[in-house]
């Protein structure tokens, strides 16, 4: 069903209001297979609201989120039944939280964390599950002998990498990332970004990355959307937007980054 010339995700005038206050308003864009979209903006600009609406964590007030499903082709996930949407979020979608603690089960070993999605879609062979979990730990640069350790014994960067492994083990096609490098120190950030970039290229993933860190989008994103007060004020190729910002707010954002 899915073809390269057909958008994987198509968002049409998505809006979310918190009472009279605007969460995000009339956001529309297409995301093609293998493409990475960055969403930047200051705190409170509506980027996390937008991400949660797309991922089905929040119900949008208006608009469509059309996903090109494997079985039935393009379908509006907002109108989908909850079991279908939850199934989608266990198989074809992945969500990487800013805080690894929100996305991991802290009381369950690393192997169990990675294996959960496999078991949720019906894997019932312990040896296979463990093998896959170990393999994925190594792919995110966690040594295989930590497979039985709990995430509480991991450093922040390792927890974040574990969260990524846990999300990618079922081979999703679309990854939502909410500030994946937030709260990590710069060298760990760099390693994580390198890893994510490698995984995105290798697996041909599409991703939507919400961040306020322009360096992250510069490294990872093909395209960029700049948000302010719930509206998209500028969109385009990443290098184009960052090197030649047109909107006053984009110019402010780009010039706010300290040059070391």
């Amino acid at each position, binding site marked *: 069903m899915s073809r390269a010339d057909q958008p994987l995700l198509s968002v049409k005038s998505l809006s979310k209001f918190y009472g009279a206050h605007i969460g995000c308003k009339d956001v529309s864009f297409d995301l093609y297979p293998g493409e990475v979209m960055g969403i930047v903006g200051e705190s409170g600009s509506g980027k996390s609201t937008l991400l949660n609406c797309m991922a089905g964590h929040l119900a949008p007030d208006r608009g469509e989120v059309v996903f090109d499903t494997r079985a039935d082709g393009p379908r509006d996930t907002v109108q989908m039944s*909850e*079991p279908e949407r*939850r199934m989608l979020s266990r198989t074809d979608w992945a969500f990487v939280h800013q805080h690894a603690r929100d996305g991991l*089960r802290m009381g*369950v*070993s690393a*192997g*169990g964390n990675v*294996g*959960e*999605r496999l*078991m*949720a*879609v019906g894997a*019932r*062979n*312990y*040896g296979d*599950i*463990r093998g896959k979990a170990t393999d994925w730990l190594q792919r995110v640069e966690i040594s295989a002998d930590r*497979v*039985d350790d709990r995430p509480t014994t991991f450093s922040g960067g390792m927890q974040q990498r574990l969260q990524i492994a846990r999300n990618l083990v079922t081979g999703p096609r679309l990854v939502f990332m909410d500030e994946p490098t937030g709260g990590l120190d710069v060298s760990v950030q760099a390693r994580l970004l390198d890893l994510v970039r490698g995984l995105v290229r290798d697996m041909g993933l599409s991703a939507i990355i919400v961040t306020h860190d322009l360096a992250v989008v510069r490294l990872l994103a093909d395209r960029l959307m700049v948000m302010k007060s719930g509206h998209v004020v500028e969109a385009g190729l990443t290098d184009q937007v960052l090197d030649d910002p047109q909107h006053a707010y984009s110019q402010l954002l780009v010039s706010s980054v300290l040059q070391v």
Partner: protein
Amino acid sequence: MSESAYNFAYLDEQTKRMIRRAILKGLAIPGYQVPFASREMPMPYGWGTGGVQVSAAVLHPEDTFKVIDQGADDTTNAVSIRTFFEKTAQVKTTTRTSEARVIQTRHRIPEEGLTEDQILVYQVPIPEPLRFLEPRESETRKMHSLEEYGLMHVKLYEDISRHGHIATSYAYPVKVEDRYVMDPSPIPKFDNPKLGDMAAIQLFGAGREQRIYALPPYTKAVSLDFEDHPFEASKADHPCGLCGAEDSYLDEVIVDDEGGRMFVCSDTDYCEGRRAKGFVGAMAATDQMAATTMTKPTLEVL
């Protein structure tokens, strides 16, 4: 207050109707936890308040009632609940499994096979099998309704990765009729195979958690497992010290402070029945008991 001031089986008729409705709903949807308005009972939570309410709702004046606690008829919990219904319902009570029509149990299924005219009532402390994996009730309900049970296997996975085998030995989760995952109350997993395809009605009452669930007769109940780590009903690898039974679930009893121990049937009625038929275990012989008491003083002298 005189004893006759109680309504039959303690609860008032409206309450019993409410509980019966929950039971019927539970029987109609095997394994589904039906909420009910659990009443305060004259005993603390954890002592079988759920089981007592279910028993009260199903008891008839002409019924014979049996209570077991960990298989035994003579432990505090069993004795007090039995006396409770003797007083408030004036029903006949028995310790014989085959003679009872309603059996209230805590943590065991009788060894003797049950029949179609019997009801087995379980006392349940925590009815939610997913509770320790997912603390939010709103979320566990959603997981049940959407049949998302992957998390249950995460628990078994953790067991194997930590212990090399599935170490859960009681309250072992079962899947009922390929639909609901159910906590069979803290029975040993040795009893799990008896849950499925049983002739008797099985009712589960959780008083504090206000839930009732049920297995109608001959219901499919399959213990969860992995393909390469299949479910195994385990028991202590000994014969019963008193009756010699090889097929019954055993309690370990410490008999002295020198490491001496014996294994006896946890189902006291089963054990007594076997001994009445003439079966004798290795440690039951009275002359041998005399021999141990004889040697003991000698050791102390040394």
